[in-house]
């Protein structure tokens, strides 16, 4: 089979993928917000003096990291309704976003946990000597420093998450890969279509890379004059 260059170009510059790309961005962003919230809580709990909750977080992280994302997606979409006798029946989007967000949360828990741990011990001791409450110490001293450490690995997670949205084709969400499969199963131009699909993912990853570097530069300076103590 010959590479149909004209078709490839026309597909690449068509509007066919605009909506799927928008879906991927929206789903990734929502799932990432869930992941960051869950991960921040998980990371704080992992470093807290709460052994029972700590174990729960360990169980969560081990489970999620040990189960393929695809299996998790199918669990939320098909498994949960079956388990609850139809009482819980999530839409494809809800199931997909929850699955990716909860999966992301496990990795973010580890990132936040190690970020907190790599803040110098002396920072805690100084906080304690200054009578700061645990909450104040976390919010004003430890987390702001942990965030700076956590930003580069979080960037990797965002790119992984964008790529993982392709698994949502299994629950019939019209994202980039699903759109591609629909096209090539109609015209059999597998290579041209999959190349376009790949290019879109690549563009998203590269585009996010720019955003990430801006973010890193912001934080690496560590001289944020906008840090306002009064803002709690």
């Amino acid at each position, binding site marked *: 089979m010959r590479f149909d260059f004209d078709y490839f170009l026309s597909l690449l510059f068509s509007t066919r993928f605009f909506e799927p790309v928008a879906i991927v961005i929206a789903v990734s962003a929502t799932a990432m917000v869930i992941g960051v919230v869950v991960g921040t809580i998980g990371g704080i709990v992992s470093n807290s003096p709460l052994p029972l909750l700590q174990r729960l977080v360990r169980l969560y992280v081990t489970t999620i990291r040990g189960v393929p994302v695809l299996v998790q997606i199918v669990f939320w979409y098909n498994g949960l309704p079956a388990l609850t006798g139809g009482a819980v029946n999530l839409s494809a989007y809800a199931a997909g976003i929850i699955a990716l967000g909860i999966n992301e949360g496990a990795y973010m828990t580890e990132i936040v946990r190690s970020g907190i741990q790599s803040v110098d011990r002396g920072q805690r001791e100084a906080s304690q000597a200054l009578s700061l409450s645990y909450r104040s110490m976390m919010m*004003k001293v430890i987390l702001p420093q942990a965030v700076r450490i956590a930003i580069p690995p979080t960037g990797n997670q965002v790119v992984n998450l964008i790529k993982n949205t392709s698994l949502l084709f299994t629950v019939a969400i019209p994202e980039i890969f699903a759109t591609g499969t629909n096209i090539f199963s109609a015209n059999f131009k597998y290579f041209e279509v999959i190349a376009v699909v790949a290019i879109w993912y690549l563009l998203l990853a590269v585009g996010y890379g720019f955003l990430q570097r801006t973010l890193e530069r912001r934080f690496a300076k560590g*001289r944020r004059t906008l840090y306002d103590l*009064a803002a709690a």
Partner: protein
Amino acid sequence: MATDARADGSGREPIIVLEEVNKSYGPVHVLKGVSLSVGRGEKVVICGPSGSGKSTLIRCINGLEEHQGGRISVEGVQLGPKTLSAVRREIGMVFQSFNLFPHLTIKENCMLAPMEARGLSKAEAEERSLDYLKRVHIAEHAHKYPAQLSGGQQQRAAIARALCMQPRIMLFDEPTSALDPEMISEVLDTMMELAESGMTMVCVTHEMRFAQKVADRVVFMDQGAIAEVGPPDRLFNSPSSDRLALFLRRILTH
């Protein structure tokens, strides 16, 4: 024999009282029944070889380390889980490695605890922080970040940060050990000014000049116990133990 350093003989009202304090890290017995009483306004310098338990001792006083036996009281309040925050209110601490908050300016470093733990308004905290930064002579650097200052300036900022909580007692754990030689005296001068203001001070340091000038008593620790205690002149000029004599020879030739 552990020397009993309970009575300082000056008739000062005791503000810190340690009685038979014991502390172990697992099998390692680090403090072996230390008794010491510090009077209000008194300046005590603690010296001794590495690993003798000096840091552990002063970190027990503000509860950064938990002691396992004996009693510690500050201003008549016995240190325990319930009284920890009350005791810490009275005590400021300065660390060897400064431990300034790197993401905050010097001024913000000084404002954080008064605002978070004492409920001062931003304006009040700012005024107080500038006041203390002036006293340690770095008010002109208030807007800078710790990384932009020299070690000596950072340590003086750390002293100001502790003073902003208006403690009655200041603990120092080798405040000049991490500094280049030319910066040591600026920190010691600041500490001497603080001493003149009447602050109760417990300083772990090997700066003998500082001890001679400022200390009411010097405590020599060895192997987790107080081996000798007395006024600096007597301790330094006529040490009664071989261990202290050896220790003094070592740091003087250093």
